[in-house]
């Protein structure tokens, strides 16, 4: 019995040690700064703008995609393509359909073919 408990404990420690290693994003030296309007965000239409830079310089001519997820399981994500409104600033309008915590996942395809990803929290979206 003691051996069984020790085995279980070792297994748990092993799993705990190796779990949580999932990498959600990869940006390299690319910096992304999101902005959501209205602020604080409410249910309904929102405008999301992400400022994408490398070494302080805006990255122009990229393709940006936004993916919005609620933090609760059972919700479908919202996908939207952003357009460049100013050099390095990518913007899209979309709907936040429910109050609560949301997650914004940004994918930027650079003109040179490389990609950068980053996720952000949009916490506490309130009812309209």
């Amino acid at each position, binding site marked *: 019995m003691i051996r069984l408990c020790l085995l279980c404990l070792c297994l748990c420690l092993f799993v705990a040690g190796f779990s949580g290693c999932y990498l959600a994003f990869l940006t390299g030296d690319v910096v992304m700064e999101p902005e959501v309007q209205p602020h604080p965000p409410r249910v309904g239409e929102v405008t999301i703008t992400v400022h994408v830079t490398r070494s302080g310089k805006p990255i122009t001519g990229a393709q940006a995609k936004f993916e919005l997820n609620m*933090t609760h399981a059972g919700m*479908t994500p919202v996908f939207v393509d952003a357009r460049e409104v100013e050099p390095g600033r990518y913007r899209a309008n979309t709907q936040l359909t*429910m109050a609560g915590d949301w997650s914004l996942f940004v994918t930027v395809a650079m003109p040179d073919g490389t990609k950068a990803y980053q996720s952000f929290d949009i916490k506490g979206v309130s009812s309209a």
Partner: protein
Amino acid sequence: MRVPLIGRLLKQRHARTLLQIPLFIISAAMIVHGLFGPQLAPKNLATTLTWVHFRGALVLVLLFAGNFFCLACPFMLVRNFVRKFVRPVRNWPRRLRNKWVSIGLFVGMLFVYEWLDLWASPWWTAWLIITYFAAALVIDSIFKHATFCKFVCPIGQFNFVAATASPLEVAVRDHDVCTRCATKDCIRGVREPAAPLVVIQRGCELALFQPRKTGNLDCNFCLDCVQACPHDNVGILSRVPATELTVDPIRSGIGFLSKRKDFAALTIVFTFGALLNAFGMVSPVYALEQWLANAFGIRFELPLLAFIFVLFLIIEPVLLIGIAAWLTRVWGKSVKPLLSIAVRYAYSLAPLGFGIWLAHFSFHFLTGFYTFIPVTQLAAGVLGEPRWGVAGLAPNVVQVFEFGFITLGLLGSLLVSYAIAAAEEMRPMRVFIVWGVLALIVAAGAFWLMSQPMEMRAVALGSG
């Protein structure tokens, strides 16, 4: 058991194992994905299957059939396997042979769900599943019989109370056959004829002797008794839901329900816990937490959450049930002591509590039904591009079902309280009015909650 195919399957000795294996495989996949997969709840098998599909399917199966999820419980598959090598020798301590430990764990489970935002955390959800497996394994490796199911498992206790409103139960077909039966294999197990100490088919591990068993309380549908009965006299039979709550015979493995304060407390926690759990997913809970934070100058969620739990699970039920019990004595002219009244009529809340759980869980289940498809595609990695567009029914459509389930539960509670009052009171109509009003108050709370805008978020306490 006479249903073609299904009946034949359930009569097989390894029927339970056959049902447990798929759930075990799914559980293993959920654990792996929860620990190593994407840590975004809508994209992870652990959170999606646990909080959307498992809970929803569980309550719907309980509503339309019975406690079949306990039958297919994957925790017991592992436990049964380990018991081939480890023979438990101890009995569960006598003072713990009641529901108090499991009530504490049930409340703890509800608390941890809110505190750690389990609905949003694949990692914690995976650890919750691992904890269940480990607890079942350790407890049932030390203690004999189905100790984990009967005295510990919070899901099991939830299922036992909810199954009082199920239309199916494991029961005896003909009591005369049991009277003539000399072996009582349904409880003792089938023994090897040449070696009577060797059990070749278990009897009931939850100490439920079929001829004296009433209803679904404490029955995990393991079907050991069905397979052990040499006369094929035990089966899954239909019945009128919730009638078991209206009668009070001495029950095998339980005794008189009217004397079991622990079962009554479990029913109360089950009912008011349903309100609390639904309250945790709507906007007003955050306003309340913010108000409490400002009023008491507290900036940590833990004490605030504890306060809300005390409010919902202790103060509110004690007040409401206490007043109802007092009115039953004073206005309804009941001669029973206050506590006995409270215990007896607490059971009438079980159908309503079940209706509220149904409303809550079916909302997530029906609105997010198809989400298992893209999440499985993502987890498997070989089933093509995840189809994220699929979800389920529209929330406004599901709200009709939610209100329907609460109404159904309310009707059940009204009928049960009327039946108890009619059978046991001198002024049954007055007593029924008292407990009927209590059920209406709880149902009104549930209707209000279900009509609130849903809001799922972690608590961030500001000063505003």
